[in-house]
């Protein structure tokens, strides 16, 4: 029995489909720009936001049920709808389940919006709303584990498929750029003054982004050549600090080791690593240490966050969806914002697109609370 990825969608500052996002990342385009919106933050700040007019236009085309939805719910529904449209999967089947990944969900409903049930501020209620929209009979499980939520949700989906109950899991994730989140990261002094520069010597913090993403996983006894399979996944905790990564990369090392051991691959077999790469000094140094400690330093590393920012609960999903495209086309994407190496341990960070057979790849994520996640993908 294998678990394969059958479809995906990405809605971000760089487009409304996986294909459009992939093409823009291939060109190292940057969706991060300056916003001067006192409702979001009292002074100008940088972020990567979804094109509002296009989102509304697509919503009006799609929403034939005339449901009244929040901005986040529109993103989630549009993302699932597009990913699903490329498959024949029945979302109303009891053999299909939905997993939702988000950190803050409809947090903007702390200021109630007329005609929206204020209870949808609760993450499980948001999940229920999405499940009802698609007529899915199963409870929508909600994963909320800081910035590893997306990767954890994919690992969880693969685990659910190992049991008897389900044939398909739809993993969907989203988070918004809100006053809440911008003010929080500002208070941590962790936002960059310029579009973020992952793994660069001069990196000075992260950029926030908003996105929604969907990955559809399928259980199969007969994987076909070229299929991208879920090979292994794990999480681990640093048990060290709640708002900063371990200086020895302890949790990340354990997560990677366990994911690789489940997948049955050794370090020399990892062709490429898509890192968390937030562009904070501590995160990128920590990842360089984990990669070095595990003998993975020969694998080219990149981060997509220089293009669409840190999209929190969506990050693990849209980044894995992009990594899958990368594997299908045997092309490692460039790291927008990266120019000069400057991490504790030396890494091979891709500046330009790089053609290389990509059979086995590693996806990393880390977050507040000392949490770390790793995921291994393999091409059949």
């Amino acid at each position, binding site marked *: 029995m294998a678990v394969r990825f059958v479809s995906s969608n990405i809605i971000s500052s760089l487009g409304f489909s996986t294909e459009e996002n992939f093409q823009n990342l291939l060109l190292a385009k940057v969706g991060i720009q300056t916003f001067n919106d*006192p409702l979001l933050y*009292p002074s100008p700040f940088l972020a990567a936001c979804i094109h509002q007019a296009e989102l509304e236009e697509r919503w009006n085309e799609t929403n034939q049920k005339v449901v009244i939805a929040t901005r986040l719910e529109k993103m989630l529904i549009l993302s699932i709808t597009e990913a699903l449209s490329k498959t024949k999967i029945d979302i109303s089947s009891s053999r299909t389940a939905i997993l939702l990944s988000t*950190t*803050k*969900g409809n*947090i903007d409903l*702390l200021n109630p919006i007329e005609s929206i049930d204020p209870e949808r*501020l*609760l*993450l*499980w*209620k948001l*999940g*229920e709303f999405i499940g009802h929209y698609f007529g899915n009979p199963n*409870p929508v*499980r*909600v*994963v*909320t*584990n*800081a910035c*590893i939520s997306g990767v*954890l949700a994919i690992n*969880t989906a693969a*685990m*659910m498929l*190992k*049991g008897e109950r389900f044939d398909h899991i739809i993993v969907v994730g989203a988070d918004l750029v809100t*006053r*809440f989140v911008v*003010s*929080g*990261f*500002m*208070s*941590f002094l962790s936002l960059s003054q310029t579009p973020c520069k992952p793994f660069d010597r001069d990196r000075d913090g992260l950029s926030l982004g908003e996105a929604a993403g969907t990955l559809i996983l399928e259980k199969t006894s007969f994987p076909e050549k070229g299929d991208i399979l879920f090979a292994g996944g*794990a*999480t*681990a*905790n*640093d*048990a*060290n*600090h*709640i*708002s900063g990564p371990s200086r020895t990369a*302890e*949790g990340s090392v*354990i997560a990677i080791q*366990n994911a690789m051991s*489940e997948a049955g691959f050794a370090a020399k077999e990892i062709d490429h690593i898509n890192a968390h790469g937030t562009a904070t000094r501590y995160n990128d140094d920590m990842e360089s240490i984990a990669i070095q400690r595990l003998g993975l330093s020969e694998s080219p590393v990149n981060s997509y966050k220089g293009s669409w920012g840190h999209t929190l609960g969506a990050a693990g999903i849209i980044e894995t969806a992009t990594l899958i495209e990368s594997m299908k086309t045997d092309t490692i994407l460039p790291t927008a914002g990266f120019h000069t190496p400057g991490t504790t341990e030396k890494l091979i960070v891709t500046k330009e697109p790089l053609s290389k057979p990509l059979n086995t790849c590693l996806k990393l994520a880390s*977050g*507040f*609370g*000392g*949490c770390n996640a790793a995921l291994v993908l393999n091409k059949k």
Partner: protein
Amino acid sequence: MTPQITAFCHIKKNQVFLNGKSIFSAGSEVDMREFVKSAFRNTGTKYPKFFKMDDYSKLGFLAAEVLMKEVDESTIEDKSTGIVLSNNHSTLTTDQLFQDSIQSDEAFFPSPSVFVYTLPNIMAGEIAIRHHITGENAFFVSSAFDPDWHTLYINQLFESKKVSACLSGWVEMDDQSLDAFVYYVEEANDQRDESMQHTVEKLNNLYKINDK
């Protein structure tokens, strides 16, 4: 083999129960937040950082502290002990507190020490630091404690050898009430009580054992 529950702790209605027996209580007139603090002092643990945590983390941390006194921590293989928690409100009370500090431009004082607690898994991070637990982590949100999901997820973690023990449970709080049910699951062992298997039925029973 189905893993087994080796200890469990309830905290609700100003009472702390360990393995079904009341070990600490306060009168109903005592504010629930004050109750949590005095219950923590009662454990005898000196940990000043506890008093800086938000209300959710305090509650989860207290439950874990009571529970882990039942576990021989020297036997923990930290790398393969997991923490899997869930609740209903995520961190809504703390979210509201942070929102109040940013609501207007005139009174705009966002604090990083409040913001960090607007993620529910911070509670797991605090517990991980205290008990040196570095294994699998997950936080889920559901409308009520969901034994079906907890057994499905955690038993699968055991089956795939990702954990050999797991601290798990439900840590819920809103403005009016709190409800924590935290338990420890370990690999099945012949010496252990078979009636304590980590099943949906057992979790349902244990969750309600102190409802009177």
